[in-house]
């Protein structure tokens, strides 16, 4: 084990961490908002809303993220004139925004399915009870459906967040030098693939460990009412 080498490469790799976090954070946030919008739109049960959404979800869940990034970056790059006319070229010219777009659309597709499923699993009795109290549909959604559904969705949404953090490692193929891109650069200079990838892997591992712990804590806090109150029924005497 060459610790001097590790000490040398870790700071270099960490220089890519802000970009990794930025890509993951932005796409998870934007994707989350879009996913919730799509999941809610599907509750309206209008075929003309449902089918385009289902098509979008099938497309982005059914194709690899790598292919999506390639198509959005290099594919759309060939429609420069059209995009310039639409005034969108400024956005598609930058690898950063292309990567954000690909990651966001991908996580939107997965996220909307997670949220849709979670909302469907809200017991019908709860909704009927709310209506019996005279709540409007919006109020039922805000007070009953969403709180229960979001709590239900948390574990699987946590998986999706972790997948997105790892998905950012594909951004280096569109010239963005995040942690994995920097790792490949160091390997090309030193030819020490094992040490460098072990370090890069460890960075992702620590990052995802923090995310899982945070989400675990959140889940714990949100399900307080499902556990027996402290002091009760813990030890039958």
């Amino acid at each position, binding site marked *: 084990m060459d610790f001097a080498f590790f000490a040398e490469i870790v700071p270099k790799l960490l220089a890519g961490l802000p970009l990794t976090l930025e890509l993951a954070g932005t796409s998870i946030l934007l994707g989350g908002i879009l996913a919730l919008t799509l999941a809610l739109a599907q509750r309206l049960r209008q075929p003309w809303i449902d089918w385009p959404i289902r098509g979008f979800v099938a497309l982005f869940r059914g194709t690899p993220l790598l292919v999506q990034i390639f198509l959005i970056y*290099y594919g759309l*790059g*060939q429609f*420069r004139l059209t995009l310039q006319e639409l005034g969108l070229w400024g956005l598609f*010219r*930058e*690898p950063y925004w292309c990567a954000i777009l690909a990651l966001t659309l991908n996580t939107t597709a997965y996220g909307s399915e997670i949220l849709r499923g979670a909302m469907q699993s809200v017991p019908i009795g709860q909704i009927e009870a709310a209506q019996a109290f005279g709540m409007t549909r919006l109020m039922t959604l805000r007070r009953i459906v969403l709180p229960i559904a979001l709590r239900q969705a948390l574990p699987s949404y946590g998986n999706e967040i972790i997948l997105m953090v790892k998905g950012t490692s594909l951004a280096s*193929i569109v*010239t963005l*030098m995040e942690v994995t*891109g920097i790792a*490949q*650069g160091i*390997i*090309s*200079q030193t*030819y020490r*693939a094992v040490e460098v990838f072990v370090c890069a892997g460890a960075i992702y591992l620590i990052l995802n460990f923090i995310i899982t712990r945070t989400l675990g804590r959140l889940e714990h806090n949100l399900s307080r009412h499902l556990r027996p109150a402290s002091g009760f029924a813990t030890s039958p005497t």
Partner: protein
Amino acid sequence: MKLLPIACLAAALSIGAALSASAEDAPKKITIATEGAYAPWNFTTADGKPDGMEVELARNLCERMKVECTIITQDWDGLIPALTVGKFDVIMASMFITDKRLEVIDFTQPYAIDPSGFAVAKDSPLGALAGSSEKIKLEDEAPAKAAIDKIKPLIAGKVVGVQAATSNLEFLKKYFDGSVEIREYKTTEQHDLDLAAGRVDALFAQQTALAATLAKPEFSGYTVAGPGFVGGVFGRGTGAGLRKQDTALKAMLNKAIDEAIADGTVKKLSLKWLKTDVTPPK
């Protein structure tokens, strides 16, 4: 069912035997890896076969050495790691013989000397400089510095595309860091696409590869500009890479390259594929 483990064991043993045989003495069978994405040096045809100047040269060298060759393709940034762990025996992928690479692998003598340069839009400040056949040796510090200082203001602030893990990238980082924005690509085909799309203003690669790219109709507004650079970070020309312990193979390849240079095969292939002669001077 009982046959399966025996078959596995037999396969493992025969692979082991093949591996140990290739480590010593003159090999009968070798696998040569190329990148397959650096036309016209090496590229992949529409039906998935490797082709190009180096692929044809590799076949020619194998005939001379009387060995059976398999030519495969492998991503550029994985070539050296894959060679060292024994996935194949020889790299012929337009790879420059540099000191840094020589720390890890060995090279044959060069079979080509090919300068690197910029490609830019004809109507840009650097484009007005136009291409020249002038070769700047980076070892000759004064003229090299003069040439670089002449280019610098003409390209300041531009986005330059370059393939990652190459001597070309090292050159840009060493001499142009801070004055241009460097974008690293996995393959040169990808930076070509981005030049066409207008995402990068210039490319830096081997002049022969640039010339081949710019010959395509969508690049009619672009030109190779300024002198070509050799030596220094570009090392001692383009050679075939191989493991340090494969000395017998190195001797065979060197002899075959000697013959191919002497009888004009390298020149012939170079003119056919690259439209210019890259044969190393004696």
